[in-house]
């Protein structure tokens, strides 16, 4: 199973440069998710790897081979498309067969692989049907099967779950993860859904504006976001980010938040670069880390006294929004307690020391 390497990739469409000098190394057998908002270049990057688009400059390596100038079929890849892209006039069997026949595989080998993939994906009963006679979930399985039978080292997925309903999406997510565990192939998976990314990936490449903002494990991008973009993009509800000013005192650093009447104690914060007094920074506080004020946590890093603006409940999760001077502060609340909150009621919240995130205002980088 090969590794995949992008080297100084530039891609322009006319005058618009989508990817500027992008470098990425994907290790053998990894499940890498390219995650980002629409238009960040993640699908472009996948299409470049697939060979469906040509790079403007830069090299792409798969294993030891430089595939930059190879045709899609010669790159040793298989791809699953968002709209499934099954051949409508061919049966399921014909769909699976087409790529293998084009590669001039022996007939017995083709049959063996079809049987293997059909069993793995539980589509044996569907082999003689046409795509129009399949449900969305079944079509998705066939599309995955069509990629699997090629038995290549690298599989590409382009938002394969976005056309499925919520229940099927969860099932198929688990299915794809299981396939990865069984085949140990390298997978590059594009999505804008952070739940898919967090649950399936061994590493996530978070992209914005054609640049990889952070490339790390799901835990790392959540716990140590490299910059403000990653901090705001990962997590739902999104992280609360406040502009703040650094105050250095004998006890250590603290940040005076603007927009909300609070000071965050940064004396226990593990700075990579220590700020100076008066520096302008951004402080990020995740909604799920707020707690009630009590003696056990010693008040935490910061305390807030804010009125409730409104609350929302989505089954297992509940979020309360508190009014600040400039907007709203989102706080995750246990759903059984959210009913007790009344609009306008002032609540006291505390925030723990070890969950504070601080970023440089100018560069947006983590401090």
């Amino acid at each position: 199973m090969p590794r995949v390497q992008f080297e100084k990739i530039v891609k322009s469409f006319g005058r618009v440069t989508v990817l500027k000098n992008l470098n990425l190394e994907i290790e053998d057998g990894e499940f890498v998710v390219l995650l980002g908002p629409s238009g960040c270049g993640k699908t472009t990057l996948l299409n470049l790897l697939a060979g469906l688009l040509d790079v403007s400059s830069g090299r792409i390596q798969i294993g030891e081979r430089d595939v930059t100038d190879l045709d899609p079929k010669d790159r040793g890849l298989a791809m699953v498309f968002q709209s499934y892209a099954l051949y409508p006039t061919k049966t399921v069997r014909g769909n699976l067969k087409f790529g293998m026949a084009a590669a001039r595989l022996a007939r017995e080998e083709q049959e063996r692989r079809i049987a293997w993939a059909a069993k793995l994906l539980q589509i044996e009963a569907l082999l003689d049907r046409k795509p129009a006679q399949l449900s969305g979930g079944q079509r998705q399985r066939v599309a995955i099967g069509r990629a699997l039978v090629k038995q290549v080292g690298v599989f590409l997925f382009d938002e394969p779950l976005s056309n499925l309903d919520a229940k099927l999406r969860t099932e198929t997510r688990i299915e794809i993860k299981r396939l990865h565990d069984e085949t140990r192939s390298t997978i590059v998976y594009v999505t804008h859904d952070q739940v898919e990314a967090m649950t399936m990936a061994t590493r996530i490449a978070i992209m914005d504006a054609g640049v990889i903002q952070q490339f790390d494990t799901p835990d790392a991008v959540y716990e140590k976001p490299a910059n403000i973009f990653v901090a705001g993009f990962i997590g739902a509800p999104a992280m609360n980010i406040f502009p703040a000013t650094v105050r250095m005192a004998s006890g250590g650093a603290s940040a005076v938040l603007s927009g909300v009447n609070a000071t965050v104690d940064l004396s226990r914060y593990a700075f990579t670069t220590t700020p100076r007094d008066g520096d302008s920074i951004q402080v990020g506080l995740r909604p799920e880390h707020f707690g009630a004020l009590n003696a056990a946590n010693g008040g935490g890093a910061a305390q807030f006294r804010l009125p409730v603006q409104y609350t929302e409940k989505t089954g297992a999760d509940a979020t309360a929004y508190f009014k600040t001077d400039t907007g709203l502060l989102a706080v995750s609340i246990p759903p059984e307690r959210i009913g007790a909150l009344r609009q306008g009621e002032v609540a006291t919240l505390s925030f723990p020391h070890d969950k504070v995130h601080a970023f440089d205002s100018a560069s947006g980088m983590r401090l």
Partner: protein
Amino acid sequence: MSSIAEAPLGTVGATDEPVAFPAKKKRIRGSSIAILVFLTICALFFCVPLYVVVVTSLKSMDQIRQGDIMSLPWSLDFSAWWQAWDKSCSGTLCQGVKVGFLNSIEILIPSLVLSIGLSIVTGYALALWNVKWANAFLFILFMCAFVPFQIIMVPLILITGFLHVYGTIWGIAIVHAVLAMPILTLIFRNYYKGIPQEIMSAAMMDSGSFWRIFWEIILPMSGNIMIVVLILQITSIWNDFLIGLTYGGIGTQPMTVILANVVITALGEANYNVDMAAALLTAFPPLIIYFVLGRFFVQGITAGAIKG
């Protein structure tokens, strides 16, 4: 024809259930009378000449000489049809329009294959592959569609002569293919533009071969548009007169040219019944094609639907 057939049907359908929709019955009647009258007039406009042609072909010359063109034949007499088919004279050759019929079939098949084959592959390449200057090429092709045939008629004679196909079936087929290419290419190209990009991407990753993708993926998806193009081409090739007259030699003239000769060359009196029968015989094949394939024609035009 189909519009008048539908109009009374629509009225019948609406008044069919007076119990369920008693209030609606009256309103639809009132407004449909005007439509019905209008459609009837339209239908008569096309049907009366057809009626005259049909009844004349079944009359004897004695009855025709009486001059009442609207009257029904005294007795059903198919001898004019037989004579038109087998014995009528085109120039000095008196073997009927059947000669032309066979010639037309011989012209039709290579013309169809050549014109559709040429434009389907061009349309496929222009729509789904990265062809340099594709848009410029399309533009020029489209401009060519507006050049009147008469302007390039003589140059084409020289070209077909140079290729040693002038006066042969293949000469006619090549001219048909060239003249039909702009519009057919445009039709195929627009149809293939409607094929989802991802299907083409999948095929590129699976095979990447221009012809394999064409034969195995794209051609099987072309059923609807193929019917449309077939009807268009069969009708226009069969009904063509000028190309057949200009590029056909003795023995390769299509039915339309033979028909014209039959009508023109008559010694003594004009045999109107034979002329009419010959005209009807010539007009039949496209009509039959239209009746057989007609319902697919509408499907093909309206359906851009290639759902996966």
